[in-house]
């Protein structure tokens, strides 16, 4: 890889503003697009949303009005980038259809990151989380068939299997056990920082999406399932954000954010099959290079350090959307019965876990179980896509 974002100059900031015509992008066709094009759009929406929210928090901790104004200028461009990226999603898609795509992102993005993660503790955090997103995909897929008579494979297109993961009802842990130990910013591989930021941003956007769109459904089971899974996304954001070293300065974090955006736009530009979408990744990469340059200057000025000290010497291998079926099957066979205890993982249901389970379920079946019962009543079967054979865990094979 020869591409080094630190050595490139992008589009000058004062030439990055787009007018209404330029913002009015043509959405993808939900029935004919590459499912991974939609995954890349959803991922970049999460990344841009995080850029905007992080930028606002940084501004709230900044007292110098001139600096606030400088941050506002870049942030406005980031806001336009988010509007362009997310507006690539078509209005004809239903919320549930988009939800299936969000879960495909969660599964294939987290699985890929887990495969590539060099640090064993961080890798375990991704392996643990991905089995939960995998189960959410299965629950929502069954709801989708009930409400719209559509199969989730029309969205995920057999690139991702749909079958039980760690059962959703067991994801409700005492919040105490959701906090992980952070990596050490002085010794961690720079790639690990990008991974943590990417997965955290994706899960945060999933949380935002479910907690805001869930109540637009009228069907009681749909409203309840979004509420349940939306609360698990709160746990996932807690899980992933606690991996990031809180000792990073604000400017260091800003540089990491901008660098990660360059990394992801570059990655997606390299693999994009839709030429119109590819052109957007390329344009945004050229904007981000300038944002990175500005962030690096701020870090030098305020922290008195060189950004090279905290960044990778060159851009890591591109982050790729691709099937992770065999990897996920190995995890299903070996890690399905894990839960967390403190900052670690155990197989037995400990006291704090049991107490949380008892309180939140209140002696009833949660929505994630009832959706399966209601689906069975309606169709006399469940919905699964098992392209590579039966479920690796005999207890989770369909009866």
């Amino acid at each position: 890889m020869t591409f080094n974002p630190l050595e490139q100059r992008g589009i000058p900031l004062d030439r990055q503003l787009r007018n209404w015509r330029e913002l009015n992008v043509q959405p993808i066709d939900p029935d004919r697009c590459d499912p991974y094009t939609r995954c890349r759009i959803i991922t970049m929406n999460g990344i841009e949303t995080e850029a905007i929210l992080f930028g606002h928090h940084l501004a709230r901790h900044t007292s110098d009005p001139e600096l606030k104004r400088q941050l506002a200028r870049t942030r406005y461009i980031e806001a336009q980038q988010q509007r362009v990226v997310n507006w690539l999603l078509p209005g004809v898609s239903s919320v549930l259809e988009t939800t299936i795509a969000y879960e495909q992102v969660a599964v294939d993005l987290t699985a890929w990151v887990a495969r590539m993660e060099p640090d064993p503790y961080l890798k375990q955090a991704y392996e643990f989380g991905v089995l939960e997103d995998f189960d959410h995909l299965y629950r929502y897929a069954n709801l989708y068939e009930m409400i719209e008579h559509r199969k989730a494979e029309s969205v995920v297109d057999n690139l991702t299997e749909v079958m039980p993961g760690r059962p959703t009802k067991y994801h409700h842990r005492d919040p105490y056990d959701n906090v992980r130990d952070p990596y050490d910013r002085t010794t961690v591989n720079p790639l690990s920082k990008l991974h943590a930021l990417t997965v955290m941003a994706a899960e945060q956007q999933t949380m935002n999406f479910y907690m805001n769109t869930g109540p637009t459904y009228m069907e009681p089971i749909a409203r309840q399932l979004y509420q349940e899974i939306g609360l698990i996304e709160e746990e996932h954001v807690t899980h992933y954000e606690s991996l990031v070293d809180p000792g990073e300065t604000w400017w260091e974090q800003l540089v990491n954010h901008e660098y990660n955006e360059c990394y992801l736009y570059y990655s997606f530009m390299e693999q994009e099959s839709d030429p119109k979408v590819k052109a957007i990744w390329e344009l945004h990469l050229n904007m981000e290079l300038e944002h990175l340059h500005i962030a690096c200057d701020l870090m030098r000025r305020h922290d008195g350090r060189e950004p090279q000290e905290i960044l990778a010497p060159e851009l890591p291998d591109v982050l790729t959307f691709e099937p992770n079926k065999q990897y996920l099957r190995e995890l299903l066979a070996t890690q399905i019965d894990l839960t967390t205890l403190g900052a670690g993982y155990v197989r037995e249901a400990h006291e704090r876990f049991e107490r949380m389970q008892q309180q939140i379920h209140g002696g009833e079946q949660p929505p994630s179980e009832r959706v399966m019962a209601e689906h069975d009543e309606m169709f006399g079967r469940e919905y699964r896509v098992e392209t590579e054979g039966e479920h690796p865990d005999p207890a989770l094979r369909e009866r």
Partner: protein
Amino acid sequence: MSDTHTPRAGDDQASDTDVVALLIRQHGDIRNLFDEVEATSGDERRDAFRRLVRLLAVHETAEEEVVHPYARRKLPGGDRLVEDRLAEERKAKETLAALDEMDPDDPEFMPRLLALRTDVQEHARAEERYEFTHIRRTAGPAELASMAKAVKAAEAMAPTRPHPGAETMTAANVALGPLAAVMDRTRDAIRRVMGRS
């Protein structure tokens, strides 16, 4: 593994007491049939397209006879809302009638089918968002159920399963006749259920 064949209209044990839930599922059934037409060729495509034509005819007729009149009567601004939907339906029916006269293997067939698919999908979502939402808010359980009953009667007019062979397919086509005849028959069935004939 489950036999997870694609659900077809009426292909579930739902209680069908809510006309909106039923119509949203039919929108999915229609989208599934578009998928099937696109994915097949030759006689299989002809057969899938026949089923698509029938389901579309039956579905749109049921909406025109059952839900649009309700929306006109009960929703504020209902007249205008329904006019917009009817204009979309008229346009779709014209394309459908033209396609119905074409051979699915004609090179012109696919581009026109895809254009129709886009129009039908946009029309369906517009109904769900601007009409059905208000119907659910306005109608009581009894009204939703009686409208559902009428739509179910219409649905029975659309045999949506594939036919075993070309012979029976031809026979079925002859029996059902062209688009206009399917619509007439559906209208009669609905009016019988609604006690208006």
